[in-house]
């Protein structure tokens, strides 16, 4: 009986505990309060969790060691990289939103800017002019929406290049292709030798997007995407757009990517392994291909990994020096973050020599104006110097389409690209891309 009498009390306790849980859960998803992230004397910095987040930890440690950092601490919070965009989108409207967060520039934060969540950094740039002048202008501008700057560059730039296996090309007396027709002819030679001429991680879809981005740039010029991003749907139906798709279709149908590229992924290391093992001669990939190859075989990365710019397509409007890729990653600041002054101090760490040196030591190409003086200390000075020159000489550096458009358009873009590689239906691709809203 005593036990039975305890039950109502236990039930009441259970209700109380659960109610408390619910109240706290509702609190975290309710409208945001001012001064989010960290405690009163701190602010949170949300970062893309991967092997490189050690760099951001360095920046946080550097800032925390300064007199300003002693007063208001920066606290690093990493979101697992694979789901970074989803996590950020889920948390950004809540009181748990980080004060400072990693992003891919204007396209990736546009919806947050529209929702009035992001702080324009113009006044910080005025009070500390170095925050602008120490970075390459082309990169600062990619973090700009309208007349406002919303991002300070962090990490480095990651253009896409045509990587190749030097031994394979030498074995078959080939050279890196400079024109589209040379690429098509080398594909035939390599195919005849039983190789998959070009490694492609079609299972991830975004490596396929890189091909479309470059072919569009070379055939139609950089203007087409600028117009499409501005909301002009007709550009997709233009003759240049159809020519770009036809050229790519010719390459796919020639067997350049083999028969099983849909089942190959870059993210599992499988496509790079094709290049490293010599079963493929080429792979179009971001500059991180170097470190990926290094992870599989350090000696291959050092001696056998070649890199070239994307071939030109005769008769095309594109510039041979144009690049596509991830122009840069940025830190943006939440409007309702309470520690704006301290955050400004933290952001200035991004151009300090110590941080730039750390970036270079990890094989990144910083976009600060003083980057060249540190490149020699990197593990791959040759590759970094070559990359820096390509970025400096680039007529246009096109942000990857899946980052230039808002995050909600990533799936439609990837689906359109994936389907085109499967069925080469130009009309389906054109109608899918025409359905995208302005970027």
């Amino acid at each position: 009986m005593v036990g039975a009498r305890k039950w109502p009390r236990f039930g009441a306790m259970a209700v109380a505990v659960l109610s408390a849980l619910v109240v706290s859960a509702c609190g975290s998803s309710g409208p945001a309060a001012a001064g989010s992230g960290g405690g009163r004397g701190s602010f949170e910095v949300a970062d893309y969790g991967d092997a490189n987040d050690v760099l951001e930890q360095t920046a946080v440690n550097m800032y925390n060691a300064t007199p300003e950092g002693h007063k208001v601490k920066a606290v690093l919070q990493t979101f697992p990289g694979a789901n970074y965009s989803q996590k950020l989108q889920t948390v950004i409207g809540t009181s748990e939103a980080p004060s400072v967060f990693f992003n891919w520039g204007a396209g990736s934060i546009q919806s947050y800017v529209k929702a009035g969540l992001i702080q324009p950094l113009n006044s910080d740039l005025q009070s500390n002019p170095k925050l602008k002048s120490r970075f390459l202008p082309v990169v600062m501008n990619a973090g700009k929406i309208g007349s406002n700057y919303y991002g300070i560059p962090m990490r480095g730039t990651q253009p896409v290049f045509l990587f190749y296996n030097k031994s394979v090309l030498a074995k078959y007396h080939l050279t890196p292709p400079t024109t589209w027709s040379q690429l098509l002819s080398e594909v035939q030679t390599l195919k005849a030798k039983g190789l998959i001429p070009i490694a492609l991680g079609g299972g991830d879809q975004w490596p396929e997007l890189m091909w479309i981005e470059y072919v569009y740039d070379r055939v139609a010029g950089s203007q087409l995407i600028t117009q499409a991003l501005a909301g002009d749907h007709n550009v997709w139906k233009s003759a240049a757009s159809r020519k770009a798709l036809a050229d790519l279709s010719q390459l796919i149908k020639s067997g350049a990517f083999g028969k099983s590229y849909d089942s190959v992924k870059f993210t599992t290391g499988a496509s790079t392994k094709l290049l490293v093992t010599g079963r493929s001669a080429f792979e179009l990939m971001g500059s991180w291909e170097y470190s990926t190859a290094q992870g599989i075989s350090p000696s291959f990365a050092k001696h056998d990994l070649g890199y070239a710019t994307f071939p030109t397509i005769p008769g095309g409007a594109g510039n041979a020096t144009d690049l596509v890729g991830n122009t840069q990653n940025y830190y943006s600041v939440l409007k309702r973050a309470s520690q704006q002054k301290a955050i400004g101090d933290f952001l200035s760490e991004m151009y300090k020599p110590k941080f730039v040196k750390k970036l270079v030591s990890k094989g990144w190409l910083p976009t600060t104006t003083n980057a060249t003086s540190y490149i020699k200390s990197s593990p791959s000075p040759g590759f970094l110097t070559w990359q820096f020159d390509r970025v400096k000489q680039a007529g246009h550096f096109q942000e990857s389409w899946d980052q230039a458009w808002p995050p909600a358009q990533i799936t439609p873009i990837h689906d359109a690209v994936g389907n085109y590689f499967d069925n080469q239906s130009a009309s389906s691709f054109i109608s899918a891309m025409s359905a995208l809203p302005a970027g």
Partner: protein
Amino acid sequence: MAVVAHGDRRDPGELSRRVVQRRRRSRVRKAGRPSIVWAVPATVYFTLFALLPLGVVVWLSFTSWSGVGAPASVGLRNWTHLFSDPVMRESIWLMLLLTALGVVTQTPVSLLLGVWAAGKGRSRSVLTALYFIPLLMSSAAVAIVWRALLDPNFGLPHQLPWLFGSGDLFGNPADAIGVLTFVGLWQWTPLYTLIYQGATRAIPVSLYEAASIDGAGPVRQFFTITLPQLRNTMITTMILMVIGGMTTFETILILTQGHPGNSTTTSAYYMYSQAFNSFDFGKASAIAVVLVVVATAIGIAITKWSGYDKMTSTQEGV
């Protein structure tokens, strides 16, 4: 004391018997119908974590919400879009197809393995223990392992071209659905085998002894004794398979991401994709409501048609 002694003329033995009887009755009443308070934790839990979110999901299905700002009411827009969306229709068919393929492949394999594993012998026990290893692995780990094993250039397809052809298992719909069915079979058969093994061991030995005396061989015994005795177990495992099939998500997320095209996009994955890739929580909520309705209807149908709700014993008269 004296007053009490004189006033109570009942036999002390009779009194104690009555008290004991009353206590017994009270205990029986309590054991049979526990206080309503007992149901409070489960009710509160179910209300907070199932009914309340479901209500919110129904409300969200009439709004447009990207996760940022406040949801804006859009009336029936998500619903009209959903009913005219070919991907949604295909995703429901695919979900039913994968569930059916799961039941059709997993039931015979796990039934035979379970009956075999129920027998005696050391080698059989060792093999059975080894065979249960997939049960210890999370679905995510299983999917990652199979993605690597089925890589066309560095996995099994490269070693066994006569079996896998070009090895493009994730490049065409039929093969991709085949891979999902196979991985489900590999992953879940041990669980159902375990259930069949336990159920087979519970069948009275006397039934087999009597059958042997009557001259029934192992095959005849399997069809006339084992199978009928496993009827209830079979219904239980099939319900688990149907629920498992309809909620398959992480395997698709890791192995195929709904590709090629949308040919492996089940309703559960489509819901996730709309919410967390396209940030369209309104449409995702409408899909969630459809899933709840479809899954509830199938659940009710199974319990009605199979007689599961009656659950009559298979051992009456034994």
